[in-house]
């Protein structure tokens, strides 16, 4: 783990969708699916991103266009340098479900949340994956995960609707032992409710405003939990008791606001 940012050269840029690009670094990195790194652009800012590509001697992040930082990042080319700190946080629990070997898992991703799930999907021997997006042009990794189920809100690809609409049928069909999810918090709330109802082991990767990433500044706290240390991946059981889940998040100045405001807000 890198406690100070380590400068790394962008070796490849992949256009994943009209809103998302991946940046590949030819460096090995100790990493567990679900963890995140802090990406530093000197004299601009440093922001958290999941690792969406990972191999023995390379790794990469997939970045959706949001505001000032991601705009600058999208403007960067092969050969330019950024700083990488981390990885930080708690990873997905792979050995979680009853019989790890034959365990069948369901992975539910929404939007760029897919980025936090991609390496997990590669590690799961045996899983069914559903991705939801607003429209076709925003879908991620369609060629990477050939038999991934898709749904779009406008119906331009796959089923029309949101991934959670499919959960019931999928469960009847696959009887999976675990659900892993990352995406819009509203979607993750639905997934956790479903898992609770059917009593399925479930983990979700949350998003909150991260600053120090090492558990001291308190910026990322979600009730009594530090997302950067005890999270970003949390269990269904924990989420049940988490008052802020699906409701509140904190802006960069610590103001607690409705989750919608948070996600919309330029900071």
């Amino acid at each position, binding site marked *: 783990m890198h*406690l100070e940012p380590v400068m790394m050269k962008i070796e490849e840029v992949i256009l994943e969708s009209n809103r998302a690009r991946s940046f590949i670094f030819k460096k090995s990195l100790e990493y567990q699916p679900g963890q995140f790194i802090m990406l530093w652009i000197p004299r601009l800012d440093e922001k958290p991103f999941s690792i969406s590509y990972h191999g023995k001697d390379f790794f990469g992040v997939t970045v959706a266009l949001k505001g000032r930082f991601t705009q600058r990042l999208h403007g960067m080319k092969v050969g330019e340098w950024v700083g990488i700190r981390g990885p930080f946080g708690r990873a997905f629990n792979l050995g979680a479900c009853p019989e790890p070997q034959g365990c069948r898992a369901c992975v539910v991703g929404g939007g760029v949340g897919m980025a936090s799930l991609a390496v997990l999907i590669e590690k799961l021997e045996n899983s069914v994956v559903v991705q939801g997006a607003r429209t076709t042009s925003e879908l991620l990794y369609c060629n990477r995960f050939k038999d991934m189920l898709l749904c779009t809100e406008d119906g331009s690809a796959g089923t029309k609707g949101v991934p959670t609409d499919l959960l019931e049928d999928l469960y009847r069909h696959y009887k999976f032992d675990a659900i892993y999810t990352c995406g819009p918090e509203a979607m993750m709330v639905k997934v956790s409710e479903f898992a609770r109802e059917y009593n399925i082991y479930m983990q979700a990767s949350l998003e909150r405003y991260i600053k120090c990433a090492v558990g001291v500044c308190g910026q990322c706290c979600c009730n009594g939990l530090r997302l950067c240390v005890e999270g970003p991946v949390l269990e269904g059981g924990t989420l049940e008791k988490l008052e802020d889940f699906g409701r509140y998040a904190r802006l960069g100045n610590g103001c607690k606001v409705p989750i919608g405001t948070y996600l919309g807000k330029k900071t």
Partner: protein
Amino acid sequence: MAKVDLSTELCGVRLQNPTVLASGILGTSKGMLKAVALTGAGAVTIKSLSLEPLPGHNNPIVIGFEAGMLNAVGYANPGIKEGVKEFSNLKEVGVPVIASIIGRDVGDFMKVLEGLRGLDFAAVEVSLSCPHTPGYGMLAGQNTPEATKEIVSVVRKGTGLPLLVKLSPNIPEIGRVARAAEEAGADGITAVNTLGPGMLINIEARQPILDFKVGGVSGPALRPIALRCVYDIYKTVKIPILGVGGISTGRHAIEMLMAGAYAVGIGTAVYSRGIEVFGKVCQEMEEWMEANECTSVKELIGSAHAP
């Protein structure tokens, strides 16, 4: 462990043990304060509140190095209005909660104190010593004896709660600043805030790592300086001291008490030893005290001041 009594008192506030969460570490929400209390802290301090919300500096705001930590959080906080909502019903926290407040001038301080009225804080800590936030603390010259006296004498009238004044280690004659605070009516001294500021450079980027370029030094690097500050302050003033700086073990805590502290603040060690550091430090203190036939914290306070 029954034989050893870890309880202590700080400006009339009774603590089950001498460990206190230092301001700015995790003190952003009541939820975090509860979590820290559960791990065994004797008291907790909130992240400093200002009148208006402050965005703080851009990231990186914190960077660890081989001898501690550099931070330039820049007092990011939601301001007093939000703060009042966040810190209602503090009884739930289970241990005394200290309100750390900051201001650009006495007017700010008084308005913030007004906002705090009616909340269940056990004490107020006025921070005059941040080394990396323009308009506040050191960068506003609040850490001189004169400025300290001027601010404290007014702020004193703004609250009935025990009033702690938090000082900077960057003033060799810190004793004089402490006396100024005492004369102006402070009930206690918190010593110390971060040192410096300092800088670290990423040589591949050829840039300072912190976005604000410089930040306050905390952790092991600060420990001997903090000890000397507390030792000097103990010699100069009668009011109790909350000793803060580099404490991460029971031995460190005992050392700080012997230098003259009545209780010890812990911040950076949350990073090096985890959030459980408070319970760990207490246990290490108990073990040492038993082994050295010392039954109460009182026996330790100031005991390194040979007659």
